[in-house]
């Protein structure tokens, strides 16, 4: 399974999770885990997703998140989960 972490940060507003999740659903990307909190008024969400269901490559998926970034004025990073596993798990 190719897992990626999507981190979403920015000023809190309504519909952030819905916006990101809808876009992911359109690309047939399954959400495996979500953690979300508000830090000093800043919305911070970590989402672990499975990329294998999607026919799109990593770069295309990342680019298709661009409208969500712009519409909601959020910073959205997507990176392969392997980097966190490598660093923090033996």
């Amino acid at each position: 399974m190719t897992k990626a972490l999507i981190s979403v940060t920015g000023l809190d507003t309504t519909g952030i999770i819905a916006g990101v999740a809808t876009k992911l659903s359109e690309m047939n990307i399954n959400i495996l885990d979500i953690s979300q909190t508000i830090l000093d008024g800043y919305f911070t969400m970590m989402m672990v997703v499975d990329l294998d269901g999607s026919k799109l490559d990593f770069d295309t998926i990342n680019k298709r998140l661009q409208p969500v970034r712009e519409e909601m004025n959020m910073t959205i990073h997507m990176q392969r989960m392997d980097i966190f596993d490598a660093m923090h798990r033996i």
Partner: protein
Amino acid sequence: MIETGEILQTMRMIQEENFDIRTITLGINLLDCSDPDADKCAQRVYEKICRKAERLVRTGEEIETEFGIPIVNKRISVTPVSLICQADPRPIARALDRAAEEVGVNFLGGYSALMHKGATLADERLLASIPEVLSETKLLCSSVNVASTRTGINMNAVREMGEIIKKTAEMTADSDGLGCAKLVVFANAVEDNPFMAGAFCGVGEPECAINVGVSGPGVVKVALESVRGEPFDVIAETIKRTAFKITRVGQLVAREASQRLGIPFGIVDLSLAPTPARGDSVAHILTEMGLEMAGAPGTTAALALLNDAVKKGGVMASNHVGGLSGAFIPVSEDIGMIEAAADGALTIEKLEAMTCVCSVGLDMIAIPGDTSASAISGIIADEAAIGVVNNKTTAVRVIPAVGKKAGDRVEFGGLLGFAPVMPVNTKGNEAFIARGGRIPAPLHSLRN
């Protein structure tokens, strides 16, 4: 499951603490390109590099995007050119530079000669061409091995290199002697080093190999901020833990690049390589330990601890470790070193002592333009002696700043940074350097 705190730590290391992969370096064997006709040889070299490295830069960029970790440089190292050139080496140099440009890498290393015991005709031809080649090419880097623990120091080569460094500086004077920043003189050179200017693909290497150099002095500095006032046991442990995390990412990138390119993984170089950016300095790790500036009494001990802990932490994180592994102390590429040198806290003599306990040597040091060739040879001989006797790699990369004197400033730009011109001891050594011959290999028992 990875916890949020761990995710944030990784992201902070990359976004705020300048953690990056310094280089993915593709080693390419060129022994099969040799030909008595220099132009034919050059053509084969060009074609082989373009074929083997065609996807290197694109693959590096893909990994960068997918894993969210900057890979600052993509580079190539090749078989030392003196081993493949049977005639004039200059057409090969030009072909290497063109090939590097064609495949889009940042540097290509291997315009090199291994002459720790003596010189072949090809070595002599290559040496003589270095100043001209480095003044005409952009991406090509050159290195010469003049000594090894098993063979001693080739003092003829040491003498010649003093002159070649001077001449290279003069021929690239309009760019502050930039040619000399692409030229390094080694003792005990390693065959799988991914770092420039000294990377080459040794004869014991496979046809091709992926070697990765990590970086991240800023991450170590920040980690040490959380243990202020604690004893050295805690410092060492903190550095080890941090080095482990950094190196695991290096290993991941190396494995991924190797799989995608279908080229065997060689080594991860466990390095702390600084850049001139603030927050990316090895010197500032030393000051975090409690020194006012790099160069203060205690600097050598602090660096020894750092170097050892980086290796101990890193070696557990990768299945093959190699290259120049350790903390680098290039003066012009490290803002803390630059400040200490400009202040006078750091001298060439103190740097020489520091090179006894870390990787790699007297690196990126600007010296007065009127420094004699024999003085440069003397510096090389001293540094080679440290490497040969202590069974480690040492190197000299000094830049005579033409028309400038101690206290002036030279500017190279980019990763190579800028540096104050440091004073060199002006006492004569011409008779010493003129002797030539070889300093015999040292005895390795009765160690005192």
